[in-house]
């Protein structure tokens, strides 16, 4: 029996048996060979099987079906081992099922393999080397802090994975922030880390439950200096000429025509009602800050960093997380984010130093988590102790390395730059 195996991307390792007669390949759920890739048409190609011969034919008229690199312009007779490419999907054709492969095994055939190609993984390694070199050249020390800790960041929308050890709760870190700030309080000045971070429930083309985060801190930096450093790093690694900076307020004024800091709740509701957002009804119970966040995600972010990397800064004080409030403008926090091609790549703060304020923010966040039916997280931590002892004035930035690699290597999904995404971990 003849079959096809997808050899790259999302469905890699999936096997389709070809049955006698017509087999339609596409993302149509009624087709015999249904694929998830949206770029593939509903009925994209047809494979006709008769008397042991298999003929492929393109149905979509999109001229993007190739066999062994040659465009399929008319029905083409397939041979064992032929490489088929349809849009961005690659498949390999096998004329007969190998007898050594048992029936039960065929569905997971090849799922041991990396979803990223060997060439991609080598380019990723090269990017990582260049990134490390950039930090070394700027005088940073590379550090390593625990990924499994008794502390965890208390955030309403981050869900750390809890592990019990010796009857005591520990958390896989959602970022290395706490450990790295403890190092600053212990006397280090310029530090960076390339490490793994874990966020439960995050899985998609731009998310993997376990991912690689690059995080750095430099004592004495102003927000402007930290943004400048981030901009230089990104232009260097992604080979841009320059980067731009725009405030959160300017971005809303430019793209949505209102001032996010001054607009009344009522007017904000009107703006939202006028945009056809197709939200589930539960949204109406949310707070102003969530609505702003939603507008940012849906309407502003996709427009950022299209020509060159864009740093958005001065987020509303309500979205400060662990950033300090701007000393001259209590409406905004000294927080910034980097976007490239509409994708969020990095988040930075002029760090909050006040242990009491951290404690209060944690209490408030926990109250919100409780109302969301989420477990309460510890408000006291080694970090709180470090801050009481004295955390030096500093800025810190976290950057998602998998997304950086995805953009650098021109890929559409981080599964293409990760060897073993979570479903295959």
């Amino acid at each position, binding site marked *: 029996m003849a079959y096809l195996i997808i050899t790259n991307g999302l469905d890699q390792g999936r096997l389709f048996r070809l049955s006698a007669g017509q087999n339609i390949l596409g993302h149509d*759920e009624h087709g015999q060979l249904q694929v998830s890739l949206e770029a593939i048409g509903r009925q994209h190609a047809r494979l006709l099987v008769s008397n042991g011969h298999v003929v492929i034919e393109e149905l979509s008229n999109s001229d993007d079906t190739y066999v062994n690199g040659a465009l399929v312009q008319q029905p083409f007779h397939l041979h064992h081992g032929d490489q088929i490419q349809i849009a961005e999907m690659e498949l390999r054709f096998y004329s007969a099922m190998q007898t050594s492969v048992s029936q039960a095994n065929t569905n997971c055939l090849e799922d041991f393999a990396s979803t990223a190609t060997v060439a991609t993984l080598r380019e990723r390694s090269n990017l990582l080397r260049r990134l490390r070199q950039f930090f070394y050249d700027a005088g940073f020390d590379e550090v390593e802090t625990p990924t499994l800790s008794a502390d965890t960041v208390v955030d309403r*929308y981050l869900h750390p994975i809890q592990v019990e050890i010796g009857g005591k709760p520990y958390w896989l870190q959602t970022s290395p922030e706490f450990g790295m700030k403890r190092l600053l309080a212990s006397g280090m000045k310029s530090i960076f880390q390339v490490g793994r971070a874990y966020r439960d429930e995050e*899985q998609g083309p731009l998310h993997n439950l376990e991912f690689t985060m690059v995080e750095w801190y430099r004592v004495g930096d102003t927000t402007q200096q930290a943004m400048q450093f981030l901009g230089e790093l990104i232009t260097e690694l992604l080979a841009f000429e320059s980067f731009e900076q725009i405030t959160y307020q300017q971005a809303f004024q430019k793209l949505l025509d209102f001032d996010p800091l001054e607009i009344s709740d009522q007017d904000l509701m009107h703006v939202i009602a006028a945009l056809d957002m197709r939200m*589930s009804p539960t949204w109406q119970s949310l707070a102003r800050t969530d609505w702003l*966040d939603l507008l940012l995600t849906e309407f502003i972010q996709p427009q950022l960093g299209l020509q060159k990397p864009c740093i958005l800064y001065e987020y509303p004080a309500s979205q400060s997380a662990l950033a300090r409030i701007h000393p001259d403008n209590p409406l905004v926090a000294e927080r910034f984010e980097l976007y490239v091609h509409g994708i969020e790549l990095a988040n930075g703060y002029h760090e909050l130093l006040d242990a009491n304020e951290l404690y209060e923010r944690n209490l408030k966040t926990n109250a919100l988590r409780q109302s969301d039916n989420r477990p309460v997280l510890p408000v006291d931590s080694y970090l709180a102790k470090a801050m009481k002892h004295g955390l030096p004035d500093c800025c810190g930035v976290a950057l998602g390395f998998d997304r950086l690699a995805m953009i650098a290597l021109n890929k559409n999904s981080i599964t293409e730059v990760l060897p073993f995404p979570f479903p295959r971990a």
Partner: protein
Amino acid sequence: MASYKTNDFRKGLRVEIDNEPYLMIEMNFVKPGKGNALYKCKLRNLIRGTVLDRTYKGGDSLEAADVEEIDCQFLYRQTDTFYFMNNTDFDQYELSADQVGDYWKYLKEGMKCHAVLWNGNPITITPPNHVELAVEFCEPGAKGDTATNVTKPVKVETGAEIICPAFIEMGNVIKVDTRTGDYVERVSLK
């Protein structure tokens, strides 16, 4: 009733929204680093076939729809009511002409069909992808006209009209693709 949390959302889920069953046909996960997760879904109404775009936020949930797919056979038609039988438990179902839609054209007595049940009641019936139907009436084709690009309507045993090549004659059995309504090939002459 069981429900799905956003974390369970994925393609292929069958859920109930505003008292109607839907199939999740697309799900995209979007999440800002510091904000709530969004689950952008496309949902197909299993009764009407319409598609609904909905964005859910992390923590929302949807009720599971009690939807079951079964094999059944078409028994007979009485004016605007179509009778089917579940092949497993022999339960009988009545469907209106509205529910059957265009598929009446292909339903022959005893034909095996696929049905979707919601809360135990059929909401859609799908005939096999290809059915064979006898031609009851057609205009004669010109002698020797075997080209497939010359077409004519023919009336088949179910009473439906199918567009066929001109060489098809009365008594022929033709194969029809029920998804497109197109003639596929001539199966037999008599």
